[in-house]
């Protein structure tokens, strides 16, 4: 059954089926696209990637829907979501959403989405479900929402150019497991949103150390302090790990504490330094808002870069990085995991 609904300058055509075959789903997807083309609203079928989504069981469908809706304005894609249910069958929901061009001569754009809900056995072969639905020739990105792994993760990862996840979905004592999960994947293909949230911070740090005086002070640092709110602990740890890795320090231990993390690192010459991750001085602040490197009474202090808040920016960047490496991530992750393993 298909329906065409119009509201708020948007159109949606959809179809639902239970006990379906993937061939039937593929046919419905083609039929819905053709039906839309016939409405002659000047819609352009707009896709720059195949976005596969394999959420962990504890990720609420509403949360997924709202994240995807926020992305629709940045990454036009064919989205294929794969979820698990206990019944031994494949159910599907196919939808095409179009934004109608707002003015004469303007064009709208359309996205299509397929939700596949299947049993564990089918999900273990999720690649066979997804292959017939992908748009040929477009890059494939696998998004793994949630802190735990979906059963479809491994078969779909084999199809993907990039794996998008957010190690920041975990915090506190759950972080070592979240980082270990990342390390179990092909790290060079991982686009960790927690890392990409740091892009402005990393630019900021790099710009600060263009100053030779700051570089000389780096050689004498005795304590690194980071202040961040709890949801940003993963990013703060990765920032600390990156600074340590690039400064040539080996993180010896990292331990969760009531309001952050504490650790030590050792330089190549054997001297020890301290790493502290604490809460923000002003509780209302979000994100990482201060970094300080202390050395014999001197301090390099960096405050959060001034920029407009854009909570979806890092996720959008992750989806767009199917062919771009994330230099610095692997050493940062390795440094943090090393410290966590030795605590």
């Amino acid at each position, binding site marked *: 059954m298909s329906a065409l609904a119009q509201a708020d300058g948007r159109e949606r055509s959809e179809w639902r089926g239970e006990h379906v075959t993937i061939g039937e789903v593929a046919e419905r997807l083609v039929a819905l696209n053709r039906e839309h083309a016939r409405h002659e609203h000047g819609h352009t079928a*707009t896709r720059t990637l195949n976005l596969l989504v394999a959420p962990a069981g504890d990720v609420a469908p509403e949360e997924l829907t709202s994240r995807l809706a926020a992305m629709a*304005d940045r990454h036009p894609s064919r989205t294929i979501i794969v979820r698990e249910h206990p019944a031994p069958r494949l159910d599907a929901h196919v939808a095409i959403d179009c934004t109608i061009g707002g003015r004469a001569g303007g064009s709208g754009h359309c996205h299509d989405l397929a939700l596949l809900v299947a049993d564990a056995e089918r999900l273990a072969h999720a690649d066979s479900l997804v292959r017939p639905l992908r748009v040929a020739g477009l890059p494939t990105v696998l998004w793994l929402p949630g802190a735990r792994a979906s059963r479809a993760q491994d078969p779909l990862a084999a199809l993907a150019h990039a794996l998008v996840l957010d190690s920041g979905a975990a915090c506190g004592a759950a972080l070592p497991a979240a980082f270990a999960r990342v390390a179990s994947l092909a790290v060079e293909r991982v686009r960790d949103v927690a890392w990409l949230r740091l892009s402005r911070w990393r*630019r900021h740090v790099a710009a600060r*150390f263009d100053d*030779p005086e700051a570089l000389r002070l780096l050689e004498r640092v005795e304590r690194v302090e980071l202040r961040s709110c709890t949801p940003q602990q993963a990013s703060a740890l990765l920032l600390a790990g990156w600074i340590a890795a690039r400064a040539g320090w080996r993180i010896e231990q990292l331990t969760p504490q009531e309001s952050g993390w504490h650790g030590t690192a050792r330089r190549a010459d054997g001297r020890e330094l301290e790493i502290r991750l604490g809460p923000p001085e002003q509780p209302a602040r979000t994100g990482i808002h201060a970094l300080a490197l202390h050395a014999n009474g001197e301090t390099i202090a960096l405050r959060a*870069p*001034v920029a407009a808040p854009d909570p979806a920016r890092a996720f959008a960047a992750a989806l767009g990085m199917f062919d*771009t490496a994330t*230099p610095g991530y692997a050493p940062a992750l390795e440094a943090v995991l090393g410290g966590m393993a030795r605590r």
Partner: protein
Amino acid sequence: MSTAQAPVAAPENPFAQDVDERLPPPSTLVLFGATGDLAARKLLPAVYDLLADGRLPERFRLLAVVRGTQDEASFREHVRAAIDMHARRDLDERLWGALEPRIGVVAGDYGSPELFDALAQRLDEGDHEDGEPSQRLFYLAISPTFFADTARGLCEAGLGRGANPPTRLLIEKPFGHDLASARELNAAIEASFEERQVFRIDHYLGKETVQNLLVLRFGNGIFEPLWNRTAIDHVQITVAEDIGIGHRAGYYDRAGALRDVIQNHALQLLSLVAMEPPASFEPNLVRDEKAKALHAVRPLDPARDAVRGQYTAGWIGGERVPGYREEEDVPSDSRTDTYAAIRVEVDNWRWAGVPFYLRTGKRLPLRTTEIAIAFKPAPHQPFRGLDGPPPPNELVISVQPNEGATLQIAAKMPGTSLRMRPVQMDFQYGTSFLRESPEAYERLLHDALLGDATLFTRADEVEAAWEVVDPVLRAWADETAIEPEPYAAGTPGPDGADQLLARDGRAWRPL
């Protein structure tokens, strides 16, 4: 035996390797003409949008040079209003709170040495407050008549050649009003600033599609083998405006369409279409190739290769609009061209025999800037007995308002008979990448802060472009020359422009 020690190399920044986009170093942007229209509509909003995108250095100052007595508080209000009205992003109080205290004013007369001394002192004070020197960018959003004197004033105050901290000079077109004046201006500026310090802005080069033209040509394997006289029949470059001259009669009546658009925007687009692939995207290598393309343009014969027109009253968008000579402050006997079209041949191995047709005009039916690459038809048509051969393939790169590219190909119409129809393969920035593109001035300001001159015009390019149009300008300046051909506002231009192509058996793309 020498006791001199080897210099100690500065340690390398270990963090730089992992950063895809560098932040500019600490900078002060000094804006001459800060209360003008360009500053309000483009430059001040661009500063704010760069700040909002996290692309400004932590230590950034905006210093306005104003004539008259405007104080800091009222100028800051002016900046806030400009951002509120014209920035891409909504005004965020937190960001404004970070920017506002970094905005300062220096007042004085552009011709007075005291102004430049006061400016130098103010810049030093800012550096002292911040505890480190910042590079200084002087943006001249002022009448070109002040360019040379301002450059000299800056140099005499120690802010030009050899300045430390480093300085850059950003200037807006027009760079002269003919070849001789452009050479004179370049020489005057060169006396005060080194060429590598001078960033000449043609804002078209900051547009996403113009940069995409380079990616389209040199990032795709399929186009470059066809990008030559073997496959291309001709090229059309159109910069059409539906608006009139507004309140710019004073400038426009002296300039005209050929100077205002063809000499800069249109010839810049031509140079990007016609240039050879640079060895790399190092600024001077790109600009070398663009300059070579302009130098390869065959000298124009004004009578044969150029057409000028002037709009008369007509209708646009259901509104009656006056003719050019009826516009405010335009002399009733003005001979200024509000439309110009030229036929250009690029005399080199790649383009021999391929004409480039360039046109621009005011009060045309619509606003569009596009580059149309018309390919040669298939050499043999096996589809006999049909309605006729399909139209040749065309690649149209739309610069504005709908940024994108369209390739026209022939396709079989569905059905049992073999009938063909042209169809378009579309790429539009607005639908393929749903993110908003940065404004051209954001890109250009950011590049200037980083010292990347790729998208700025070098002195030799400017002069080469004037060399192309100079013979036509001289012919048109002759009082005995034929007057501009009238065309009604809302029509695609004078008949003579159609004849320019009809002589070659071609026609303009419809407007």
